[in-house]
């Protein structure tokens, strides 16, 4: 590249009206430089409670991966294949672990008052993520195409219908529930998780209560 070309491209890159430049600027500004994947942590990050966040995240990875394998075989595969049944069991147990770790993580963050220091949105995205995850697992139980799904649908419809949502979200329609389970709700969980992690990296791990910088 000649000097003149280089000058031109710098000028273009700096153009604040350029949509691409603006988007890049926003993305680059989401997390302070070097904090997206830092190789250091503040000295106060020294407790087993911090492990539950990453355990929740890795459980989600296993949930999604086992769900993808189940998708390969189709809706009824796990009823007729021992491999399919095992993958379904991994899916179930990783979901149980996911919720278990998430609840410990949530309680840990509560006792640490982790919303301090402009971290309220991090807390809110975590709570919403918990709620959307419950919806995702609920639609999963409805998509099992077995006795449990029949009973959970028959029981669950009354709650959903009572608030008027059943008109749009029919728990007795496994086709609709399966699509919510494998597309819409996981998309919500994924986006919220991404947002939550970006916010954590943006603000850093919350300092101890009443901490000052001399610590």
């Amino acid at each position, binding site marked *: 590249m000649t000097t003149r070309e280089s000058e031109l491209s710098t000028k273009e890159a700096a153009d604040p009206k350029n949509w691409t430049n603006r988007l890049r600027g926003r993305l680059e500004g989401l997390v302070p430089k070097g904090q997206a*994947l830092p190789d250091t942590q503040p000295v106060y990050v*020294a407790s087993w409670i911090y492990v539950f966040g990453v355990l929740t995240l890795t459980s989600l990875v296993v949930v999604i991966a086992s769900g993808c394998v189940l998708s390969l075989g189709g809706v009824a595969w796990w009823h007729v294949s021992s491999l399919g049944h095992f993958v379904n069991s991994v899916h179930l147990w990783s979901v149980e672990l996911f919720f278990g770790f998430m609840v410990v993580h949530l309680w840990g963050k509560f006792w640490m008052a982790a919303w301090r220091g402009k971290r309220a949105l991090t807390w809110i995205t975590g*709570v919403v993520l918990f709620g959307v995850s*419950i919806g995702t697992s609920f639609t999963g139980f409805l998509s099992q195409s077995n006795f449990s799904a029949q009973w959970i649908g028959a*029981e669950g419809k009354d709650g959903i219908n009572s608030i008027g949502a059943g008109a749009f979200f029919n728990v007795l329609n496994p086709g609709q529930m399966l699509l919510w389970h494998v597309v819409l709700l996981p998309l919500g969980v994924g986006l919220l998780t991404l947002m939550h992690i970006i916010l954590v990296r943006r603000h850093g791990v919350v300092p101890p209560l009443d901490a000052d910088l001399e610590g």
Partner: protein
Amino acid sequence: MSRDRTPDAHDFPTRRYDLVKEFVIALVVVLVLSGGLAAIFSSPDEKAITMSGWAKADPDNLVTTAASELAGTTTSATYGAPYNTNAEGQKLGPLPLQKWGGVRVPVNSADLVLGPVSNVSDNPAISSALTEWKAATPEQRAKWATAYTDAIGTAAADGEPATGAGGEVAKVKPGDYGPVPALSAGLLALAKTGGLEGALTSSGNFYGGDQTKSLLLLADGAYLEDQAVAQNLGGDQWGMMNEVGNAPGQPWMWLYTFWYQVKPFSTSDNADAEVWGLMMLLTLLLMFLPFIPGLRSIPRWIPVHRLVWRNYYRRVQRT
């Protein structure tokens, strides 16, 4: 939040940490745990109830349910939105939320019987019963169907004496039931062949992916609930939070299920709407906890954080 003097996390002294290594170790731990638990405990897969299974195990209940659908007295027939306008539905205080949702999944309970049996060909008894039913006035139809369900009655249970024929169709006394016995028997016969699910879910549609009608019919009968109660899944047994056998179901729904077990919800006609309303309120409280004075100070009053950051506080004390 105005007095929030939390320092910037990035300004604290740091120590070496490997986030990627932590993630990989956690992933391996979760993989081993999930795989191990799956190998040891597996996952429950109780086969779905079929209409054929219901017809063979409890034919009287299926016939009674069919007659009740024709009489318009089943749960689904008297449900309201989103299935029909036969009831106001539940309210949250003065708000008729269920009604506001509208009838977007229309289901006529009589059609749960008439639809499938009208597809049966070469059966003169059913054909003439259908003709008689169609020619009758709505009042006459209701009179026949109600008389028949009353005549079948119920078995003695929970200290209540038996009514009618004690729930046994074969012992029903002769009466003016019109075409209802033939139509109900027709549905039973169709169910026994295994063709009822298809007739309800995919009639007129090659790809049947919506089980609303068959699940409503199944739930209107007593057979589904009897099976669920036998598996400790009944509403007063903490219901759908559980799974069949000893497998964990959805324990994270314990608080939602809990409210159904206690008054005033356990005796309220609007329990579902009220429990949902309460859970929405509690969720909002949890979401906006950082902004709620008092609630946001609980971690200061009960110093669990002293355990989490004990090393930090010890070091600060020393210096």
